[in-house]
């Protein structure tokens, strides 16, 4: 009997989770990268917490963006090389749906850990404790949107030589809205203001991403397999 959609998503996620836990270093590297970037700012800017606090939203979001770009490399590359993507495309199941499941799993393994470990970096940058929850929420939502967006670019660069730099070149301008609203939400959290307005915007982008990005990613992957 043909496997149902939910079971397909579960299997796709289960395989990626199992693979990730067999190679934990791949999971930790983007996190470590994020921490190091956050450490470099006080060293280059100033150790004064008040100055760092001003820069904190930018530091956290650019760090998160670069780290998610790094993690994006792992999203499809291995699967393209070992024929897994081809198997997906020929399975008779919806490729769009499978890639959506894959992207969500990828976010669970990269974006979510990043958002949850961000408070350490944030505290070191002088972000007040009350702001942390809002900041984690904005980073979680924003990194989800970035994963969806990145899935398209990762799919598009499958067929390209020197995919890595190109991947960043494609993703960075497209991620500006996420960055703007995310950094605004974090800034508001630090100022103790309501974060709802930029969070709604991030939510809207995520919804748009959920609807359109997997379709575009599936089209991109099929082209990449040619």
């Amino acid at each position: 009997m043909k496997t149902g959609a939910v079971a397909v998503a579960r299997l796709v996620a289960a395989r990626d989770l199992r693979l990730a836990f067999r190679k934990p270093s791949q999971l930790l590297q983007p996190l470590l990268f994020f921490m190091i970037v956050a450490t470099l700012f006080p060293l280059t800017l100033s150790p004064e917490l008040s100055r760092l606090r001003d820069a904190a939203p930018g530091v956290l979001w650019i760090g998160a963006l670069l780290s998610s770009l790094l993690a994006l490399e792992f999203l499809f590359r291995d699967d393209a090389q070992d024929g897994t993507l081809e198997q997906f495309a020929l399975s008779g199941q919806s490729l769009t749906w499978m890639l959506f499941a894959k992207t969500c799993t990828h976010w669970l393994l990269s974006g979510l850990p990043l958002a949850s470990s961000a408070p350490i970096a944030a505290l070191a940058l002088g972000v007040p404790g009350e702001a942390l929850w809002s900041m984690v929420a904005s980073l979680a939502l924003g990194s989800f949107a970035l994963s969806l967006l990145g899935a398209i670019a990762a799919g598009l660069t499958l067929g390209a030589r020197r995919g890595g730099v190109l991947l960043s070149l494609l993703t960075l301008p497209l991620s500006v809205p996420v960055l703007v609203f995310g950094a605004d939400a974090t800034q508001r959290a630090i100022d103790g203001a309501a974060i709802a307005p930029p969070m709604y915007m991030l939510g809207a982008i995520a919804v748009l991403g959920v609807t359109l990005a997997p379709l575009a990613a599936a089209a991109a992957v099929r082209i990449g397999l040619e």
Partner: protein
Amino acid sequence: MNWTWFHRLGSPPHVYGFATRWTPWFGGAAAIAIVVALFGGLVLAPEDYQQKDAFRMVYVHAPSAWLSLMAYSTMAVAAAVGLIWRMKVAHSVAAACAPIGAWFTVAALGTGMLWGKPMWGTYWVWDPRLTSELLLLFLYFGYMGLRAAIEDPQKADKASAVLAIVGVVNVPIIKFSVTWWNSLHQEATVMRMGKPTMNFDMLWPLLLMFLGFALYFAAVVLIRLRAELLRRERGASWVREVLA
């Protein structure tokens, strides 16, 4: 329904012939429009009450900015047509649009910076329109970068088409987010690049210049399209006939 026109649109020799015939007309009309508009804008139009002669930069800046967006949209529409109806010529049109659009973006940025110097006392301020324009330039670079990085031309066509469509969906969102961002930091802007209140003497050269730029865009797309078709179809018999 008669679909022959649609099939002819997809046939490279037909499109090549069309482009060859129409290029001089578009080019000629563009030259006339631009010369008349320049005369109107630089000589006939009165100087601006606040910005004096500096405002005349608008006659190059604004049409370049409009065309940079129009070129991106044209590229995305052509890409979508190529993807949906599997029409190779449409992909060539999209490929022809990208570098011209990027140059319009550069022109808009350059003239914006030159305009900024007398207005703000500095070449660059993070004005929302200039910032969006800069991001648009990066989108163009991404598109051309992807196209260049994929060796197989058919694959490059399709992948860059997907990117163009994703980009065109994103352009308004980017624009909106940049406006949002700017409204947060209002105090940083010394003086907004205000829309000069234009009377008719100032306005008609601007509109004519826009038309001239659009015609110029069409002419250059056609020229690039011809080159693109010749390159892609270099093995085909019609190319040998054309070049003979």
